[in-house]
């Protein structure tokens, strides 16, 4: 019974990941992250992704504040924030977030304010979708670890 739990959870994890790859939400860089995780660093993926979330939310908040300002004109600053977002998103394999950030950056280079506002909305949307998916993934992993732990009592 307990064995089935682990296998079923693993199947759920695999299905979720396959779906995310298929949708282009994640790319092969995410696999690189997983490869770097082992017994010496068993929570590496979780740690990096959480650092990514913290950084990204700071940048997104800052971007929103900049654009909400009626007298906004600092497109260069927007560009700098976006460079960081593009870089960190590509480092963890968050392909869709990266791509919409690049599109947003193009709008900022044209000093196009409505384009930037639209771009920011799209980025926020994609970012939150990714975050929800990652939370689901981590929950499944956590459950699987617990199920595996019960299966092999110490």
């Amino acid at each position, binding site marked *: 019974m307990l064995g089935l739990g682990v296998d079923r959870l693993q199947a759920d994890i695999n299905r979720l990941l396959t779906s995310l790859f298929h949708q282009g939400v994640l790319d092969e*860089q995410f696999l*690189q*992250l997983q*490869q*770097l995780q*082992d017994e010496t*660093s068993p929570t*590496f993926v979780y*740690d*990096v992704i959480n*650092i*990514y979330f913290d*950084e990204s939310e700071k940048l997104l908040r800052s971007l929103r504040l900049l654009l909400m300002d009626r007298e906004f004109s600092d497109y260069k600053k927007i560009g*700098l924030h976006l*460079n*960081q977002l*593009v*870089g*960190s998103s*590509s*480092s*963890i*394999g968050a392909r869709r977030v990266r791509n919409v950030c690049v599109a947003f950056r193009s709008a900022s280079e044209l000093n196009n304010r409505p384009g930037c506002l639209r771009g920011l909305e799209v980025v926020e949307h994609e970012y939150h979708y990714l975050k929800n998916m990652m939370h689901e993934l981590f929950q499944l992993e956590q459950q699987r670890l617990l199920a595996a732990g019960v299966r092999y009592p110490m």
Partner: protein
Amino acid sequence: MDRQKPTDRQRCLRISRFPLILPYKSLFLHFFCKIKSLTFLTNHKHIISLLSSLVYRSLIDMADVMRPEKLDMSNDTSSLGSPELLHVLAVDDSIVDRKFIERLLRVSSCKVTVVDSATRALQYLGLDGNHSSVGFEDLKINLIMTDYSMPGMTGYELMKKIKESSAFREIPVVIMSSENILPRIDRCLEEGAEDFLLKPVKLADVKRLRDSLLKADEMAFKNIMHKRELQANDIYSQLKRAKI
């Protein structure tokens, strides 16, 4: 005795392995010639050969004492010491990338120091003008990997500063960037970058880098040994010319 007596050539090779001997090689040749010339004064050749062996032995012992421990080439196959302990200095302003590159390098059996800016990198190396070079002689960095786009000083400017310093200009510098801009890449390579990596950096990139650095080191080692061999031959042929 089971052991064969070493030939003169073998003796010369052994001498040449002691690098400090080479400046004194004319002195040793002088000793050898003087001893051998004694054969004109006596018929007791076996006494002469015994004497020359004794002098030779004591010269070797002297050389042994003078030999610097670090250059014991018998066990060390690379100047990096153990190939596993490649010490890399990584520079990146992005916290996500720092975490990532640190793990990437650790997994590749490297010792890693990560800093968040070019200024900090210069501080670490002692190139920020606030320190004398004392205390940084033991700092053994084998590779510097830096992001290109950083606030303040870029990775390119950092590399230029490193290449300007006599202490660190030999250290390979790799530049990383998420932007595939050809003129930028050319400029970096022209300025002396070892390599230019497009982000996101992969395990395969680091492995390739490590392999090429270790191979370069192996080549340097082979060159040193070849040079030694040539110097040994030089000593030997001088001995022969002196009709020993």
